[in-house]
Structure formats: structure tokens, C-alpha cells
């Protein structure tokens, strides 16, 4: 079996352009890898070999003519939250178990136009609600570094697929850390861009003021390449920014001399895994050695972030998930009246975590509680945003751990929702402030489990964030280890 699946986007782009390899060979290599690993990993809900090969053949025809886009012929996994026309799109839920998307979301259409290849729809927590991918109606995704552990969530399948080389790169979404945490747990690069940088049209909505589209890749350079094709104005998403998209790859100069890195004191607290803290501190010291300056900063409202998030996100979710009512699409449990039809369809179609969050969100918005919960949370969100605004007057980027631990065991946290929520502590404020955030591998613990470094930027400063991550990654600070698969 050829090991073309090991390639990065940058490497594949070059070899495809020089016609040393074909898109069909590259896609075949990934599909074979998927067939070999999927029984153990469960990173995919739907694998689409026929469609992928058709896309690969079309890509080869284009590559033969020369001057094809960067993503032409590149096999990608797509989180099953994106509408992909003609393909089953389930959001890992029984309520959409047989739903076939009638149209492509905007970023999917952009990737198709660029000639990318979709090998399958990646597993996730149902409706993006979770931090482990254990809330999927299609079984959990296992961590490629240790199959007894979680891949993280909610974009666990997308992260695991890249880590295991089942694809060259993938798409996830991030509402409270759902790209960055699985990236950290699976030892790959994951980016949540600035809110409004990438269109959310055709992405099944969880929390509309927090959701953001982003890539998983093997290297920071790859993330810069992919992000450029994802970002940009979209008339179908009125929250999507019209700012021009820079050439992110061109920003990767490798130079971070003089870069001021803010280190928030609230993010290095007890209860954190010692090895995670050591790895992150070692990364910061290393970046100092590359010429960056470490600045201690404070984000005083950090301890209120989880409480705020679990009101706002669940409230928005309760509204966004009201459409799953058994009427126009999805699961329908028949009844002789509409109220019972709704009640039973939703009871049967939604999993426990989704029900829990809908209940919490509905409560927070209900009459008599709206001011005490939803409005209060919106005000605390302002305080959290202001913390970051003040911090960015003293530093250019902020560096923190991604998660308090490495990947935990399957089943370990699933019965304690609050424990699961607390694992979002380092990622969640970034969504609330709408900032760009990235997870870059920075080491492994004594069991070989990956550890991620989070780099947070000011709004629309992805170039600086990517430059920092790329400089760190390229400096040989750590030796990347492949999963034992």
C-alpha cells in the first residue's frame, strides 16, 4: 500500500502540480487507509468512495491543464455538520439519520470549485454538543494514539482522521473549543478563525453567535493554505465579514523576534495536569529563545467563562434546534396531533446531552428567568471581551494550554456533565470574545498522548497567530510522533 496518505497539503500540492502523483492515486491511498483503520477508529459516519474518485478524476483533468488551485485533488474529511449536496448529513443525530443535503454550504461549494476531494463525513458529538465525540448517535471516535481514549469533541472524527492520515486535512467547527480541543488531544493543528471570518451558510447551527468554521491540518502551513480558501465574504451569511482575505501562507516568515506573547496568570491553575503545564511552559520558553517576549497578563473574568457560555450557547441552541420537529425533514414519529408529533419526534430523535442543553437553554430564556440568566450572561460576555481588549494593548498574541488534561478515557466523564463542561475552561472565552485561536502540538505526556499549545490572536489577526505557530513548529522544539496505527 502506498503511503501517499502521509503527505501534507503543501507536499501533495507540489507533487500533484509536477504530476509526480495523481489525485486518483492520492485519494485511493486515503480510501485504503480508511478501510484499514475505520473499524478501530470510527472517525467517519459516511465514507463516500465513489463520489471521492469522481472528484479525483475531475481534479486530475484540471491538474493536467496546469495552474490548478492549491486544494485541487486534495482528499478532505468533512465534519457531518456541513451540508454536502447529495450526501447524507446527520449531525451525528438520529433526528437527521437519513437526511440528504439538498444543497452545498458555502465553504463546501468553495472547496468543490477548487477541486478538493471529499472522502467522507466525519463523526462528531451530536449537534456539536460535547467535548469527546461520545455523544454521537453513531458511536464514539477513538483516539489514534490510544484507542481506549477519546478523540475529543465535538469535531473528534475530523481530528482523528487527520492524525491517523485517513485524509490530508479536514474541516471542523468550533463553538466552545470543538476544533482546538480535539486537535490538542489528537496531536494535529486546529484553527478557529475570528468570528465572522468564514461563512456559516450551510453549517448546521448550534449557537449562532459562537459557531465558527475551521480546518484541521498536519502543519501550520497547511492550515494557512486551507484557511485562505475558506475565508471570505458571503452574501448568504449576513454575519460574514467582507474584509479582504490575506495570503496567509505569505505571512509565514518564520520570524517572531520581538513578538509579545501574553501569558494569562489565570490559565495556569491547580487542577491542571502537571505534564500539560510543563509542556506548555517549555513551548513558551522555546519561543522566548526564538526572540519573542513573554508578558504576564491578567484575564480577570476567566473563572466566569464556563457559566456564561452554558447559558448563552444553550439558549441559542434551544432556538436553533426548534426546527427539528418532524415536519419538513428528518425523523418523524407519527401521532394524530401535531403537539404529540413534536414531543415524540424530539424525544426519540435527540440524545441525552442535546436534551439537557435544550432544557437548560429553554429555562434560561423562559419568562421570569430571562433577565437573571440570559441577559446577565450577555453582560458578563462583555466583561470577558473587554479583558482581552485590554490584554491586547500589552501583547500581540496570547499563549495558553488548550485543555487541562490530555485525552481522557472513554466513559470517564460522560456521566458527569458538569465535569465534561469544565474541560472547556481554556478554550471557551475565545469564542465568547470572537477571537481567532489555534492549537499547535507542543509535546506528548509520559503515556505518549499529545499536548496542544493554544495561540490566541486579536480579531482578524490570523496572520500573526499563524506566523507564531509556524515559527514554533518549524524550530524543531518537539519531535512529532505518529500514532501507533
Amino acid at each position: 500500500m502506498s503511503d501517499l496518505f502521509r503527505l501534507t497539503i503543501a507536499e501533495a500540492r507540489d507533487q500533484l502540480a509536477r504530476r509526480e502523483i495523481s489525485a486518483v492515486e492520492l485519494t485511493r491511498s486515503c480510501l485504503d487507509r480508511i478501510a484499514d483503520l475505520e473499524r478501530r477508529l470510527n472517525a467517519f459516519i459516511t465514507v463516500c468512495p465513489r463520489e471521492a474518485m469522481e472528484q479525483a478524476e475531475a481534479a486530475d483533468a484540471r491538474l493536467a491543464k496546469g495552474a490548478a488551485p492549491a486544494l485541487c485533488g486534495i482528499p478532505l474529511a468533512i465534519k457531518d455538520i456541513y451540508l454536502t449536496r447529495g450526501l447524507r448529513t446527520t449531525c451525528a443525530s438520529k433526528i437527521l439519520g437519513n437526511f440528504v443535503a439538498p444543497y452545498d454550504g458555502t465553504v463546501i461549494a468553495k472547496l468543490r470549485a477548487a477541486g478538493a476531494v471529499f472522502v467522507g463525513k466525519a463523526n462528531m458529538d451530536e449537534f456539536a454538543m460535547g467535548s469527546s465525540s461520545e455523544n454521537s448517535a453513531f458511536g464514539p471516535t477513538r483516539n489514534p494514539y490510544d484507542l481506549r481514549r477519546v478523540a475529543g469533541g465535538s469535531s473528534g472524527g475530523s481530528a482523528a482522521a487527520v492524525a491517523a492520515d485517513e485524509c490530508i486535512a479536514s474541516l471542523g467547527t468550533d463553538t466552545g473549543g470543538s476544533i482546538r480541543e480535539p486537535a490538542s488531544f489528537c496531536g494535529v493543528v486546529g484553527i478557529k478563525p475570528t468570528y465572522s471570518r468564514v461563512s456559516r451558510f450551510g453549517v448546521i447551527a448550534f449557537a449562532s453567535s459562537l459557531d465558527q468554521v475551521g480546518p484541521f491540518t498536519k502543519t501550520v502551513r497547511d492550515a494557512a493554505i486551507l484557511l485562505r480558501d475558506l475565508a471570505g465574504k458571503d452574501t448568504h451569511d449576513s454575519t460574514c465579514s467582507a474584509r479582504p482575505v490575506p495570503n496567509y501562507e505569505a505571512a509565514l516568515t518564520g520570524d517572531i523576534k520581538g513578538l509579545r506573547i501574553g501569558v494569562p496568570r489565570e490559565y495556569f491553575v491547580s487542577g491542571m495536569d502537571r505534564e500539560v503545564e510543563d509542556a506548555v511552559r517549555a513551548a513558551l520558553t522555546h519561543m522566548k529563545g526564538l526572540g519573542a517576549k513573554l508578558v504576564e497578563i491578567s484575564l480577570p473574568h476567566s473563572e466566569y467563562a464556563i457559566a456564561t457560555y452554558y447559558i448563552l450557547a444553550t439558549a441559542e441552541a434551544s432556538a436553533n434546534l426548534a426546527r427539528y420537529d418532524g415536519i419538513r425533514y428528518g425523523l418523524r414519529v407519527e401521532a394524530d396531533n401535531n403537539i404529540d408529533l413534536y414531543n415524540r419526534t424530539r424525544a426519540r430523535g435527540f440524545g441525552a446531552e442535546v436534551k439537557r442543553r435544550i432544557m437548560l437553554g429553554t429555562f434560561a430564556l423562559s419568562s421570569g428567568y430571562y433577565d437573571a440568566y440570559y441577559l446577565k450572561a450577555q453582560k458578563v460576555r462583555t466583561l470577558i471581551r473587554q479583558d482581552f481588549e485590554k490584554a491586547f494593548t500589552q501583547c500581540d498574541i496570547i499563549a495558553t494550554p488548550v485543555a487541562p488534561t490530555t485525552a481522557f478515557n472513554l466513559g470517564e466523564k460522560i456521566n458527569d456533565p458538569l465535569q465534561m463542561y469544565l474541560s472547556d475552561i481554556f478554550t471557551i472565552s475565545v469564542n465568547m470574545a470572537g477571537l481567532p485561536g489555534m492549537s499547535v502540538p507542543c509535546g506528548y505526556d509520559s503515556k505518549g498522548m499529545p499536548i496542544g499549545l493554544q495561540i490566541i490572536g486579536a480579531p482578524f489577526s490570523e496572520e500573526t497567530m499563524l506566523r507564531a505557530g509556524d515559527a514554533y513548529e518549524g524550530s524543531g522544539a518537539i519531535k512529532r510522533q505518529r500514532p501507533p496505527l
Partner: protein
Amino acid sequence: MSETRINLEQVQHVARLARLELTEDEERHLQADLSSILTYIDKLNQLDTSAVEPTAQVGDVGTPMREDEVTNRPDPDAMLQNAPAQRRHLVVVPKIIE
């Protein structure tokens, strides 16, 4: 105490609002889960937010407008391909009015 933070009646009321039929077991578990979560969320009351404006939106904020023109082509077959029951481009549902 977190067990009494939300009572069973409130759980049932919220379930009605959310159009979720719950088993008795689910009601009890949700009462316990929501109580412990809401107790945790109470920490927000430590903050004085009387002079703070709420944040509704982040990113490039605004409400872009466009001309009120149809810009896509209707495709009822595609839009109805997932309908649980349909007839003549209509979605069939239970009778609502007696």
C-alpha cells in the same frame, strides 16, 4: 442545596416549552443535572453588571441590506426530498384544527 435548585414542576414546564416528551426517569435525571449546573451558574451573581452593556454579536457587526429580489431558482423537488410525507408539493401533517 443543588437538589432543590429546580423542582420537578419546573422541569415539566420547561419540557412542555421545549416540546420534549420525557420519561419519569429522564425528568428526575434532568432535575438533578440542571440543579447542579444552575448552582454552578449562580457564581455569575458575584459580578456587578449594572453598568455593563450586553453583547449580542461579536466580529464585524452590522445588518447588511440587499435589494428584495429573488436570486435563486425554486426547486421544490429538492427541498421536499427529505419530507416524511408529501403530496403534490405539499408536506402532509396531522390535522391541527378540530
